[in-house]
């Protein structure tokens, strides 16, 4: 697992250990992408999912594997600002693009208004859905800075939470929206 702190030099990561088939039968592909504002170079296999590259090779374990069929949203990351299911997105699709994970949300140790609001409003319990939930909410606020409840619900309909019952999450998004408006 690599360390994402330090310099902004591109980080070169080799693909994992052999997996059965002879080397020449497993196509590989060098890609560059930006992850949380930092350039990353990797040699991947086309079949690798973005979720596994983030978690296993970049050590960004905030995105979680849960349902694995793009229903629950626990693996959500933002790709060029849009939410995608990293469990069903080839890492290949991130080439030349920007990936934002939960680890990239705080800025210089200062939490994003959504992170503050989730803490404030008890909008999480076990925390497993939280990364995906916050990033999806961020993409909502980026597009709609003053969402009403209907819009919040519609935007988060694809993110499951088994612990909180959702009410506090709605409140947290509303609170974060207000904070952003106030420049908090």
């Amino acid at each position, binding site marked *: 697992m690599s360390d994402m702190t330090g310099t902004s030099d591109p980080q070169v990561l080799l693909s994992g250990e052999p997996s059965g088939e002879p080397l020449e039968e*497993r196509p590989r592909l060098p890609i560059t992408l930006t992850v949380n504002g930092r350039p990353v170079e990797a040699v991947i296999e*086309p*079949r690798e999912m973005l979720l596994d590259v983030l978690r296993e090779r970049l050590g960004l374990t905030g995105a979680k594997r849960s349902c694995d069929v793009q*229903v629950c949203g626990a693996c959500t990351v933002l790709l060029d600002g849009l939410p*995608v299911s990293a469990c*069903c997105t*080839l890492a290949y699709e991130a080439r030349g693009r920007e990936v934002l994970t939960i680890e990239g949300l705080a800025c210089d140790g200062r939490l994003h208004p959504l992170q503050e609001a989730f803490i404030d409003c008890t909008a999480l319990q076990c925390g497993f859905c939280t990364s995906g939930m916050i990033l*999806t909410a961020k993409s909502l606020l980026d597009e709609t800075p003053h969402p009403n409840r209907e819009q919040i619900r519609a*935007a988060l*309909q694809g993110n499951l939470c088994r612990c909180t019952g959702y009410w506090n999450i709605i409140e947290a998004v509303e609170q974060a929206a207000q904070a952003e408006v106030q420049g908090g």
Partner: protein
Amino acid sequence: MLAPFRIHEPTTVRDASRLLLEHGDAAAIYAGGTELLLLMKDGLVHYPHLVNIKTIAGLDQVALQDENGSRTLTLGPLLTHRALARSATLREQAPLIAQVAERVANARVRAAGTLGGNLCFGEPHSDPATLLLAWDAVMELTSTDGSRRVPAISFFVGLLQTARQPHEVLTSVAVPLLPAHAGAAYEKFALHERPSVTVAAVVYLRDGAIAQARLAVGSVGPTPLRIGEAEEALAGDRPAESAFSHAAALAARTVSPVDDLYGSAEYKRHLVRVLAARALSAASEQAARRERA
């Protein structure tokens, strides 16, 4: 983990078609991957060659065309559901298509999944397929052999099967714009991620009567179906609840649903009847409103 594959990056449709011809069964078109990758993850299919058509420019446009006085929207196959939902042109010219796009699956699937991928996959529970079938859309299929047009009514051939030949690429979906005296409506009923029943209706009024109606029912059979019998019954009728009810009953009798996780056959037939009546009524009402406006 998926078995290994190569990703090809053609920059023209012709090149894509050549690649598909060359690799035959071992190749699949790869666009958003929202259906394909799920299937491959399940281990049910494997394609050692994915032909990525997102590297072909120009397939993600919404264009308004005027051909022989009839106005058509052409939709590029690489338009994601999200892009469709937000297209200003689409929202203005055929808002229902944008609205339906906004309700497909979830936000993440909408961000990556494409119209073309959805239609060509031939999934029985597809929202756009049901809607565009009722809309009389025309699919343009292009290959090394040239281009051909297939109306929606001939496009959905069977379970996960369309009229697209393996080496063809869906290059556009032409959607006729509804004239002022026509309205369209869409109804769906969902228990799970995919809907149990989808119904789309388009109604044209003239002189206070139904000039033409098109009714498509999806999710309850291998493909969405146009209910010709119901459409014939409606032609010439006054746009009243009794007419819609009768047409809906015909639709319910025409479909052949099976018992499965989405409901029993009996219940699905019932839902078809309920939703078809609702969709016809809403489409007719919209037509009347637009006529008045």
